[in-house]
């Protein structure tokens, strides 16, 4: 048996490291995480792999102040639904941002961060978090 969590994370590296989803050529919708079937076109759908640009804006957010063990050390932290420019939304932490200055509509971009670790003997999980675009690029 794999060490705790290894296989679970390993098999979705592409998705959580690169924000890789898919795109339906029939209806032009993007999906993240990738879907096995296009919910619009079903069997008529034609799905291709798509790497998202990692740019978007905050759709809604919360500041987590009571968290399970895996995240306790990070409290308080911002978690948000990010609406990617290509359309789909995903849930992610917002970093490089004070909890007072986050707002709905804020432009954010993806960054690569440590998410959590699966205790002693377990692996460290890396993946996407998002940060305000202004902080990094100096412009919207």
């Amino acid at each position, binding site marked *: 048996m794999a060490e705790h969590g290894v296989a679970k994370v390993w098999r979705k590296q592409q998705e959580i490291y690169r924000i890789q989803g898919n795109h339906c050529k029939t209806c032009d919708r993007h999906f993240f995480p990738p879907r096995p079937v296009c919910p619009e076109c079903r069997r008529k759908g034609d799905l291709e792999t798509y790497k998202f640009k990692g740019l978007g804006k905050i759709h809604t957010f919360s500041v987590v102040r009571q968290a399970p063990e895996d995240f306790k050390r990070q409290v308080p932290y911002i*978690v948000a639904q990010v609406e990617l420019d290509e359309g789909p939304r995903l849930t992610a932490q917002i970093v490089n941002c004070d909890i007072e200055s986050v707002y709905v509509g804020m432009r954010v971009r993806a960054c690569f961060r440590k998410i959590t670790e699966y205790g002693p003997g377990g692996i460290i999980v890396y993946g996407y978090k998002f940060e305000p675009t202004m902080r990094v690029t100096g412009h919207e």
Partner: protein
Amino acid sequence: MSKKVAIAGVGMSKFGELWNKNLRDITLEAGMAAIIDAGVAGADIEAVTIGNMSAGRFTGQEHLGALAVDMGGLGDIPAYSVEAACASGGAAIRHAYMAIKSGEHDVILVLGCEKMSDVNQTEAMKTISVASDWEWEGMLGATFPALYAFMARKHMLDYGTTDEQLSLVAVKNHKNAVDNPYAQFRRELPLEVVMNSGYLADPIRLLHSSPITDGAAGVIMCTEEKAKEFTDTPIYVESSAQASDTLALHEREDITTMGAVVESTGTALDRAKCSIEDIDVFELHDSFTISEIMLTEDVGIVEKGKGGEAVEKGLTQIDGEYPVNPSGGLKARGHPVGATGVAQLVELYHQVKGDAGKRQVPDTERGLAVNIGGTGATSIVHIVGR
């Protein structure tokens, strides 16, 4: 095939942190109470359905169907465990409803149970989180309160719902629970206390959230013919409906509406051939106070966006036009996740029967319960009437 499905009797364990009892004790207690209330003999019971979300993680015990039949001394009858996260209880009711409707069984004992206080609070939170899309929400740091906070913040932005309105739901439900002997919190909660409670996940405060609860509830469901043998005044399940939505909240176009609730309520009302105006009492799934506000809108009590106003104006109080959660709801009666859906039916049974005591909504003929799982990915609606 039975035309009508009846409820012949109900029972509940006390809801709360029951440290000196285990899962078997409370489930047996609720089941026995229902059997005695209905006046059925053990030999009359043809099957058991049991709703439970996560006994495996909360207590280390699964295979609850066989356990219930064994502990209840019910012989070799079939038993079905049903899981639909926090809607597991509702799912067990619906499962029995379908089995009776189809003619497969005539008398079924429906149970719902959860023992949550055997693990610590953070472990309980983690277990609850698996009702959302764990891989794409929970694992990335979104706790269950945070997901409801997403909805609350959006509802506040889109419709001007306030912190005070969210808090008033808790105040109302605590007030109702004072008169419910089975409730976890039988005390009133002043508005200032709710509004000064700390944030779990902004804008969701501690006292906007349902508690960690141990509890079980039981219902005897049967055909119309059998019910008449057991009791002179059976209550009927007039309709049962269920719908699904995306598991992950971020996949929904509008996160301030629970599409599955709208869908299943519509179907339930159609099947019972009535409109929302014909419903006298509601048990709505208030795992967080924002969900009661959203559900008052989604079932059609008020139009979209007016849920906050409804509680503020007293529309949803016991003496209001649309009484919601006279039992105290999940907030104050307590929310043992797998038991909640069954407990909602127990309350409607008492309300429709007219024996709900001080929390009785006058002249109640028909009640509606909405039991949701996760952040609304499952919605199960039952209409109960005379």
